[in-house]
């Protein structure tokens, strides 16, 4: 199942708990889920993790036969590993982009392998970014900035300094 967690410490950015961006991180590796979760929490995000594409789709309300999620449901970004058993990150990306509800949510694909055709394929399918693993704090800072820009297009100054 998907699991959610977040830090109880207050955020330097000035958002209160409800305003923290919510990121869904999808990866079949437990080690990687733990690391990405910590990176995101340290960047003042709420995090939900999922161990595969199927669980991610269930969480997003996009699984076959599921009713769509209500208007309150908010995910600000999805970060997915490329290589996963069952459904690859690319296939997950496609499903999200095909959905009227979720296609506007930025999807970031991460991979341990630097394969240009793979990168091209994901970007052409609408991925926001393609990043190489292992992710570091500077990658997450960049993603955080992108989330901020999408949330607050007039307040780009929020990206500075963190």
């Amino acid at each position, binding site marked *: 199942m998907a699991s959610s967690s977040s830090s*109880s410490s207050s955020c330097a950015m000035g958002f209160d708990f409800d305003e923290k961006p919510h990121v869904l991180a999808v990866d079949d*590796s437990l080690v*990687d889920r733990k*690391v990405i979760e910590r990176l995101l929490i340290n960047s003042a995000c709420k995090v939900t993790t999922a161990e595969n594409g199927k669980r991610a789709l269930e969480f997003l309300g996009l699984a076959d036969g599921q009713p769509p999620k209500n208007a309150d449901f908010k995910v600000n970004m999805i970060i997915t590993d490329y290589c996963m058993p069952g459904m690859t990150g690319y296939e997950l990306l496609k499903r999200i982009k095909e959905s009227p509800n979720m296609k506007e949510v930025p999807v970031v694909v991460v991979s*341990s392998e630097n394969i240009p055709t793979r990168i091209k394929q994901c970007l052409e399918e609408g991925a926001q970014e393609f990043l190489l*693993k292992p992710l570091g704090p500077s990658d997450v800072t960049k993603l955080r900035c992108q989330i901020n820009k999408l949330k607050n297009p007039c307040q780009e100054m929020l990206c500075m300094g963190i």
Partner: protein
Amino acid sequence: MAGVAQLQRQLVDYTASLFHEGFLDDQFNQLQQLQDESNPDFVVEVVSLFFEDSERLLNELAKSLEQQTIDFKRIDAHVHQLKGSSSSIGAQRVQRVCIAFRNFCDEKNVEGCQKCLQQVKHEYSLVKSKLETLFKLEQQILAAGGSIPFPM
């Protein structure tokens, strides 16, 4: 307090040697930097997950290489996972053997794969014992009332 200072010195030197000898790479530093007072056990927790995961994968690999018909795709998938998780915690030598291992899988070279399995088991047990020593040193420092020196 002289005891604590000595332990701290030991920890700094030991950690430096692990980097110097290539057991750990910068990714391990990254993990240490993610740890703070609100999450004091983060590194130990991630590394413990790595140990569990690796032991499972090494067992699977041994079984797969004992089969009558070798399923190279399956072996490759397991090695890919091991490569990924070792990379995520900075276990550089394990990661490097995994790269060689995957090449032998591509070539469907059974002997090469068996050699690599032995090598990766060896590197894994080395890094495991070294990390356990490192964590023990940290525990000793904390028990003596000291704090863990910030990673260099």
